[in-house]
């Protein structure tokens, strides 16, 4: 069952007690584990063994969690289906024959299949929420800066966060509580304004008086079955005392474009270090270093990674920088502003996590644009640095559907409370 979930199965024992004692935790394979291969789903790092642990790995083992393996993923996080892994696809345990979503597909599949109690994913534009929705489990993308990225192999470092995937909101909250909080090795981490990072006790299902904004733009492109399941979920929340109203986020129309320009630009720089000199695939080429680097990288990276590096390099180039990168940054600021003002009128914003149900394996491979557009509801949240949770809300023709709830910066408790009311 789990042979396509893990790239590497390895046990890293944790402390004997703590909030995660007895829990088995799967780790996405772009998070560094001391002495255990960390491949990022790439041929480039197929044999790379880090000499250090990511901060989140230390925190999990310190909290008593046992790490059971490194999960499959789209190469360097670049994908929505986990089919971009050098190590092959992962089947969806909740919908066999379909993709588990991506890029943290292995992590969501591990939880859905019972191969782990909990898992860590990373979310640059939806990479935790998408697989959580597709596999019928819970995933949280924390506020930018809440969880240390030290040891997370960067794809787009201004956008991504590590977050928990679990079978229940409470379990996800417990894992978040363990990994959250300032880390002196990541200068972008901050403690929440309210001070502590207590989340596990927030999953009390109390939504009485909760004000939910529904961005109309995020329902427009969604499939009918997805929309139906979404409204069922909303009714469930309303029946427990929540109120809803429509909100508008006009900027999200540009979010996917802006997201891909920023993510690819950052990726072109973040992935430059893979030259085969210190680690990773070198190809064993000889001669002029420039050509050697190029040859090794041509062999080590898959097509999607190359596509994004090339586009990102182009977007940052002199003469195009203003037209693409700078414009994308402006759009990002606009998206942030839109979300901030919508959240002044609502406690949380709700939408379908994915506008579609899981693709069949192989279905989307030939059309990157279709894949990029499937991120329409998740990427704006990363652009806005906000927290979001994806919680299962039934199915469409037997395929899992997730509801995304977005909160204000460091509003994770609010999201956990609202999400737990859907269970």
């Amino acid at each position: 069952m789990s042979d396509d979930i893990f790239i590497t199965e390895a046990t890293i024992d944790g402390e004997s007690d703590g909030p995660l004692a007895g829990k088995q935790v799967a780790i996405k394979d772009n998070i560094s584990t001391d002495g255990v291969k960390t491949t990022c789903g790439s041929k480039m790092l197929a044999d790379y063994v880090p000499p250090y642990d990511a901060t989140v790995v230390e925190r999990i083992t310190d909290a008593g969690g046992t790490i059971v393996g490194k999960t499959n993923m789209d190469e360097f996080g670049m994908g929505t289906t986990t089919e971009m892994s050098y190590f092959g696809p992962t089947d969806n345990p909740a919908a066999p024959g379909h993709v588990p979503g991506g890029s943290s597909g292995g992590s969501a599949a591990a939880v859905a299949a019972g191969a782990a109690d909990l898992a860590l994913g990373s979310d640059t534009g939806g990479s935790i929420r998408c697989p959580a929705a597709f596999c019928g489990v819970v995933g949280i993308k924390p506020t930018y800066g809440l969880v240390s990225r030290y040891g997370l192999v960067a794809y787009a470092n201004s956008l991504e966060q590590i977050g928990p995937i679990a079978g229940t909101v409470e379990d996800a909250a417990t894992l978040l509580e363990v990994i959250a909080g300032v880390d002196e090795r990541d200068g972008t981490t901050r403690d929440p304004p309210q001070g502590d990072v207590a989340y596990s006790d927030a999953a009390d299902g109390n939504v009485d008086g909760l004000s939910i904004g529904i961005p109309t733009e995020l329902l427009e492109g969604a499939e009918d079955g997805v929309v139906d399941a979404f409204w069922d979920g909303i009714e469930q929340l309303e029946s427990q005392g929540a109120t809803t109203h429509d909100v508008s986020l006009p900027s999200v129309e540009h979010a996917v474009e802006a997201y891909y320009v920023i993510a690819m630009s950052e990726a072109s720089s973040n992935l430059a270090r893979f030259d085969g000199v210190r680690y990773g695939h070198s190809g064993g080429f000889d001669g002029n270093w420039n050509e050697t680097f190029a040859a090794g990288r041509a062999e080590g990276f898959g097509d999607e990674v190359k596509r994004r590096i090339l586009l990102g390099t182009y977007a940052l180039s002199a003469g195009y920088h203003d037209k693409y990168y700078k414009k994308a940054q402006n759009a990002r600021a606009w998206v942030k502003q839109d979300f901030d003002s919508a959240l002044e009128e609502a406690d949380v914003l709700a939408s379908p996590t994915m506008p579609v149900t899981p693709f069949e394996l192989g279905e989307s491979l030939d059309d990157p644009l279709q894949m990029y557009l499937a991120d329409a509801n998740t990427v704006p949240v990363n652009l806005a640095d906000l927290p979001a949770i994806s919680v299962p809300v039934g199915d469409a023709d037997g395929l899992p559907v997730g509801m995304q709830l977005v909160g204000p910066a460091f509003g994770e408790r609010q999201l956990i409370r609202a999400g737990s009311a859907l269970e």
Partner: protein
Amino acid sequence: MTAQTVQQGDLVTVIGLEVHVQLETNTKIFCGCSTAPADGPNEHVCPVCLGLPGALPVLNEAAVEAAVKIGKAIDATIPEETRFHRKNYYYPDLPKNFQITQYDEPICQDGELEISLEGERHTIAIERAHLEEDPGSLQHVGGSIDTAEYTLVDYNRAGTPLMEIVTAPDFRSPKEVRAFLAELEEVLEYLAVFDASRDGSLRVDANLSIIDGERVSDDGSIELADLEAANRTEVKNISSHKGAEKALAYEETRQKNAVRRGREVEQETRHWDESRGITVSMRSKEAEKDYRYFAEADLPPLRVAHWKDEIAIPELPKARRERFASEYGLGEEAASKLTSTKQVADFYEDVASEFDPDLAATWVADELLGELNYRDMQITDIEGRLEEIATLVELVATDEITAKNAKEVVLRGMLDERDDPETIVDREGLGKTDDDAVQAAVLEAIEENPDAVADYEAGEGGAINFLVGQVMQKTGGSADPGDVNGLLRAELE
């Protein structure tokens, strides 16, 4: 910039500098690795400075503090916040294949440094100075970069904090460049942010072009358009003041010759070959590099608005020189020598506070620095023995020993044999002979040398010197030659 008279047909040299200096911090700029010299290659490294996947930079605020000190010293504008950018390019010594640096918001902007050359003062504008990380270092085995069999990479240096200081094209001669680098180094050492003795701690790139004298206005300024119209060369691989002067003098002559012969100067990068004393073309007509700068999201902006007020800097060389001249009545040369490093100036002030400032100046600026220089030593090499040097000055000031013995026997003995001054004085019997003994020697000398006495009385000037020599011999050099001269004359009257 200085006003100068330019004759028609003159060719004027225009030089601007990019100076890289390593900042003295205990740890690297983005990780906790030591910046001290390592025993072997790749020993002071960690996931961050090796650029391992997932490692993140964290800013060492000590480097920012050093940069703020430099900013204050050169009277630069320091922004409210400081930010970092990525400069993207591939090179084997660059662990991440991008360098973290500062692009459009450098920590220092619009500063200046005054230099003094042959009695004239020039102000050199400093356009910007920014922080960045040093790359690793390459060792080409079996040849040069082009011919080596293979190349080894050492990342000990990677992540050492660097300050890149960019001047306006305000230099009109290689001599000015040398004076600027010397002044800059002095200032940096005063601030205790720089160690000149560290290998590779100063690296200079220089842009040089030749402009028709007619393009230079009366106040010495040159229109930007004229500067841009002139082809310039960038000279790289300069690592010392002297090297800078030599490299640029070579390049100046080469370009002037080309212009005079009606040949165009090619816009190119040239490599200073110190051993051959020439500049060599590296690659000509190189396309403008595109570094694709963008913000480094891993390092949030750091607010430094209040740092400028909170960080104190010591009195700088120029101010101290001026104060030494007025407070101690020193000439320009002595004041310059005595402020050349902070340690020398501090020591001088210690000595001058106890003894005659002139005597202190002679002893510190001429005798001590002269003897140290002769031995290729710095004042820092005898840091723990400055007390002993002060004792030696005291022995001279209180007339215990002669100045001649103090320098030739005691000071040299102290430096060469590491003895303390009293030990040498006792051992060599240098204590000044008492007056009676000198008087006796004077009488003896007169007694024993009637011919010389006769010559003296006949008005022969050299005779007295002969007699002084005789007395000095009898007293083992411990008498004061001036006193002896007086005593002899008194006896012979």
